[in-house]
């Protein structure tokens, strides 16, 4: 953590140290931008390299990092959940519509080809690599630490607000939906039962949720403005995540690696054949 701690009285330094989100593993302790670069390079790398070996190697590295962070099981579960809906459509579309010479089986007018299965499998491996990389970032990075780090690097506090407020908005909307649902139920709205009953109950629920969220955003932006949020100029942050020389080297190294992969792919040296 970087903070004005060296300049503070002991009491204040202790207090500021308590503001820092917990970092229970060495991976959590990495600078948020380093973790963002890892997630970006892993995602783009899997996309650019293609094939099986490259994305599988990336998945292996990401899972190893997740094991260090102590989030391996949760990461696999969440990534699988994210990938599953897309996987189903990819399999259906690729297997039965991709032209190929080796027909595995036929359903009605559709031929399932070996080439289609191969394409679907490669796409799924890429998707899983991207999903694990992004999920690992989300599971090991406090959003506030990330936006403060970006602000320290010169990003506007307004962007920080938009990014952090977006992350915070989801649980707030879920909580509000729960409150409104309870209120509507107490007035006789049926939100349970069959699909039709649930659909009927959806509209009286979603309209007040959206409207109250819009009102809240307006009031919250007013409350922020009166706290001088729009003032131009740099803020002296109470704390922000630390950065180390070797992390900077890792970030540049990863960026270079990605560049090499892109050049290799364009030149035909790195390909999607294996």
């Amino acid at each position, binding site marked *: 953590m970087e903070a004005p701690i060296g300049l*503070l009285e002991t009491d204040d330094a202790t207090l500021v140290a*308590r503001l820092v989100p917990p970092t229970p593993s060495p991976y959590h302790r990495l600078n948020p931008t380093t973790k963002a670069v890892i997630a970006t390079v892993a995602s783009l790398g899997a996309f650019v390299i293609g094939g099986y070996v490259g994305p599988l190697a990336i998945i292996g590295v990401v899972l190893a990092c997740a094991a260090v962070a102590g989030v391996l099981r949760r990461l696999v579960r969440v990534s699988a959940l994210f990938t599953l809906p897309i996987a189903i459509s990819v399999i259906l579309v690729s297997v039965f519509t991709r032209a190929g010479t080796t027909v595995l089986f036929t359903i009605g007018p559709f031929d399932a080809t070996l080439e289609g299965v191969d394409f679907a499998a490669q796409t799924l491996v890429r998707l899983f690599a991207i999903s694990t990389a992004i999920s690992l970032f989300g599971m090991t990075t406090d959003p506030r630490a990330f936006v403060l780090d970006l602000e320290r690097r010169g990003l506007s506090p307004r962007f920080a607000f938009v990014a952090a407020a977006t992350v915070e908005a989801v649980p*707030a909307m879920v909580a509000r939906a729960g409150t409104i649902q309870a209120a509507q139920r107490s007035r006789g709205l049926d939100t349970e039962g069959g699909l039709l009953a649930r659909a009927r109950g959806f509209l009286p629920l979603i309209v007040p949720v959206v409207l109250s969220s819009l009102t809240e955003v307006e009031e919250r932006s*007013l*409350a922020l403005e009166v706290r*001088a*949020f*729009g*003032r131009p100029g740099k803020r002296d942050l109470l704390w922000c995540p630390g950065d180390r020389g070797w992390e900077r080297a890792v970030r540049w190294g990863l960026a270079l690696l990605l560049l090499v992969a892109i050049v290799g792919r364009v030149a035909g040296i790195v390909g999607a054949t294996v």
Partner: protein
Amino acid sequence: MLELRGATYRYAGYARPAIHDVDLALADGEIVGIVGANEAGKSTICLVASGLAPASIGGGLTGTLTIDGEPMAGRPVHDLAARVAIGFQDPATQRSGITGTVFEEVALGPMNLGLPATETIARARAALELLRIGDLAGRDPARLSGGQAQLVAIASLLAMRPRHVVLDEPTAQLDPEGTRLVADALRALASAGTVLLVAEQKTDLLDTLCARVVVVADGRLVADGPTGEVLGDERLEGWGVEPPSRVRLARALAARGLDPSVVEGAT
């Protein structure tokens, strides 16, 4: 000093003004209460007095807002924020949503003012201590009770140390102890020279807090004078305002032929 002169304000999209020709001057160190029925125009006066209407929310204002003799028309909101703070009724919407602890929430305003971190910390700590909520410093601001959240919202304003404070029903969600803490904090601010404008339904609070009270009805100031005089006015209930309990008690005693002067401060 904060002064509204001939202020008529119309919200964006509305043909009819919400307040008409309001003249209101607040001297340094003065606490002025605003009372009135629902929709009478109390909140609108607060928004206009803080400069947020029309600077932030739009609409049309005729008349002037001056602070310490300087006209505020056309000034950016962050400039207004350094001069006048405003607190709203609902603590949930006053939370920034971008901080993880109460301490950071309270420190956000001073930090936005560009103060050194040491000064920000000192101000946040002092504001929390003034409202006796120092024990909440490490708590998640999203997980507080309504009363705690309101105290944090007020502390967030106080940490900016504005010379002028406008509060729209600041104790609406507070229990009697919380209300007393806020009243003590406001008195302390006023004694340091801060100008305070407080819109409230709780006339008992204004009765003990303010030297002066104004009454708003249908967007117009219909009474302006010393607290005892205004809150003891026979027309108060007709304006949709419940008199404070000491006034009601004195009237009840008088109605039964008893001496109302036994009630302290009865008019």
